């Protein structure tokens, strides 16, 4: 069977599975629609959270980013997992005890005001919408690359599939579909990694392979990789930090608290039966996430090794001379996977010095001795451009794995993109139908009408997300970082204060959220333009790029969160104290006993 036919078969089977599950798990009540009936087993919930959490970016792009950044890429690994420790201890059990459907509902009750829940809805919609644009573009890219259709057609197919299982199944359908999607995506991620690790180091477990010696030698893989990249003028793989250590530190904080503040992750902990389950479910979620996240750095380093070995066939030999005239790969002799990816434009070769060989090195190196050697060898710039996304997608081809593995990676990438899109759409639609419509404007809405409104809101959200995916506002890459910044600077601090401070009042919470999200957006827009419109940057106003201690806009959410806390406590001290019944309620939330089934209808 051809690769194309195998891909269609495996992807088609996986879709049939998702839709079958959605039909089996139809939601009949608002409780099933919003929180899957509140009876999901913690292990299953952990798996669903894993699929919900791991997006197209985690699956396709993360290993490539780490591969390019080396040690500095660890900030994604630690940042996107460390937030679960915070979630498990600081938020999940208390929100579960609180027993509502949505995050804004918590704000509305704890801060006893519709303004607070309205502010939370606004922050939630901003964070989720920016996040979903990236997901929808990811869906389009994944479909077009794997199924050979145009990116727009890919987005239409993706919209239709998500529509089918999210609109009919609600949280219940999404939860069980995500469990299936998790199984598909983790299999797709680990199978090629195991083969590659076995091939390079003889150890089938990638996490251990990364720390092992290369096959038939006493040299550790990482040590060899460090030597080679330095020989090619790059920074040492195991130590290079992009930007400053301070920025890496702050960036990691932002990703951690952003993770803990993203509404589509938080709502997953409303679906388990008990407070106790909310704690362990966060642990299970991290177990399932960590299986992929600990494999990723191995994939990253091994793929880099394989790529460099392909381009410079002699590097594994002792005392190989990288600058020798015949040391580099002749372009005409390149392996089949390289020519296949050249067609997509994700891999580009440009013969700058006209010798027909591929020179791939750091032509921006500041090492003068290296630059002199490169010039002496007649190199006129690096000739190979490799898109970070290739690392995961082309891995099975680089390692010469069979067609079914390549097709499995396609199904895995699609599962990752679709599951995250569905989770975000549910967070958006419940904010609209429940928090805006039912709580603020039409309190008399019957359950049946609310369920219908939820489904219409979901359909509407899918159309908007599809439109934005088709016409991305030209900043797809920046959106994910911004979504984390927004969640980190607005939602996380307000949730924390709601649980851990009995005295935080509504004025403080609202002012804090507005200050946090405001200052973060101000800093980001200064760098990337107002609402990312090109030409409207105002770096001059804030004193140049990364003017705040060299902190990059992607990392600024943590600073926004500090503003949030500071403003909230300052305003609290100037405004009336919190009512006694609210203080009593906070005390009750801190105790597990008496947690009832989630009841959003009061």
């Amino acid at each position, binding site marked *: 069977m051809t690769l194309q036919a195998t891909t269609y078969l495996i992807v088609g089977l996986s879709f049939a599975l998702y839709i079958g599950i959605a039909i089996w798990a139809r939601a009949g009540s608002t409780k099933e629609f919003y929180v899957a009936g509140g009876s999901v087993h913690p292990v299953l919930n952990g798996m669903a959270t894993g699929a919900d959490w791991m997006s197209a970016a985690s699956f396709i792009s993360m290993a490539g980013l780490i591969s390019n950044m080396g040690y500095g890429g660890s900030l994604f690994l630690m940042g996107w*997992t460390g937030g679960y420790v915070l979630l498990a201890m600081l938020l999940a*059990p208390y929100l579960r005890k609180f027993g509502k459907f949505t995050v804004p509902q918590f704000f509305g009750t704890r801060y006893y005001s519709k303004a607070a829940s309205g502010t939370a809805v606004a922050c939630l919609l901003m964070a989720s919408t920016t996040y979903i644009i990236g997901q929808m573009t990811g869906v389009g890219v994944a479909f077009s690359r794997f199924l050979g259709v145009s990116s727009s057609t890919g987005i239409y197919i993706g919209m239709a599939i998500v529509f089918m299982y999210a609109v009919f199944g609600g949280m219940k359908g999404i939860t069980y579909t995500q469990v299936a999607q998790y199984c598909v995506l983790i299999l797709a991620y680990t199978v090629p990694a195991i083969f590659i690790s076995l091939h390079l180091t003889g150890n089938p477990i990638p996490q251990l392979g990364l720390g092992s010696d290369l096959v038939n030698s006493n040299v550790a893989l990482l040590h060899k990789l460090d030597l080679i990249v330095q020989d090619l003028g790059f920074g040492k793989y195991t130590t290079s930090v992009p930007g400053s250590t301070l920025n890496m530190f702050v960036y990691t904080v932002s990703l951690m608290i952003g993770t803990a503040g993203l509404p589509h992750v938080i709502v997953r902990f409303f679906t388990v039966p008990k407070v106790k389950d909310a*704690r362990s479910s966060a642990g299970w979620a991290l177990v399932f996430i960590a299986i992929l996240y600990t494999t990723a750095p191995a994939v990253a380093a091994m793929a880099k090794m394989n790529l460099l070995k392909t381009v410079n066939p002699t590097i594994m030999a002792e005392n190989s001379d990288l600058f020798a005239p015949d040391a580099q790969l002749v372009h005409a002799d390149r392996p089949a996977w390289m020519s296949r990816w050249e067609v997509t434009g994700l891999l580009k070769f440009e013969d700058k010095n006209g010798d027909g060989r591929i020179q791939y090195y750091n032509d921006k190196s500041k090492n003068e001795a290296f630059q002199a050697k490169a010039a002496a060898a007649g190199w006129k710039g690096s000739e190979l451009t490799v898109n970070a996304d290739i690392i995961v997608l082309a891995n099975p081809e680089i390692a010469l794995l069979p067609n079914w593995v390549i097709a499995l990676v396609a199904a895995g990438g699609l599962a990752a993109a679709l599951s995250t899109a569905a989770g975000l759409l549910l967070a958006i639609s419940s904010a609209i139908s429940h928090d805006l419509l039912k709580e603020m404007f039409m309190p008399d809405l019957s359950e049946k009408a609310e369920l219908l409104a939820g489904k219409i809101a979901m359909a509407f959200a899918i159309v908007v997300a599809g439109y934005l995916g088709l016409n991305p506002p030209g900043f797809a890459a920046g959106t994910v970082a911004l979504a984390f910044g927004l969640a980190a600077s607005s939602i996380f601090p307000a949730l924390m204060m709601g649980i851990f401070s009995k005295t935080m009042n509504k004025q403080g919470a609202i002012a804090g959220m507005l200050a946090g999200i405001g200052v973060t957006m101000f800093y980001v827009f200064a760098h990337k333009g107002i609402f990312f419109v090109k030409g409207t940057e105002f770096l001059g106003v804030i004193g140049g790029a990364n003017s705040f201690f060299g902190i990059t806009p992607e990392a600024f959410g943590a600073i926004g969160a500090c503003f949030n806390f500071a403003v909230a406590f300052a305003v609290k001290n100037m405004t009336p104290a919190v009512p006694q019944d609210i203080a009593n309620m906070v005390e009750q939330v801190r105790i*597990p006993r008496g947690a009832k089934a989630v009841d959003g209808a009061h």
Partner: protein
Amino acid sequence: MVQHDEAAYWKATLALIRNVLIVWFVVSYGFGILLAPMLNNIQLGGYPLGFWFANQGSMYIFVILIFVYAKLMGNIDQKFNVHEE
């Protein structure tokens, strides 16, 4: 439950959270970032130790931390008799 117990329960909870957060901070921000250059002089198999913490170790420890927290928190719930029926 009398008022006094409630305060003691919350105090025990916060103490546990503080301890877990200390470990959380030390393995990621401490060993993974701030002290990584120093730890890289030590080898763990084929891994420089600081790089290992940033790339692998901190994540394993995060997982263990959550389950240890869940277990100890369950014990505190039992001790103060506030667990769910």
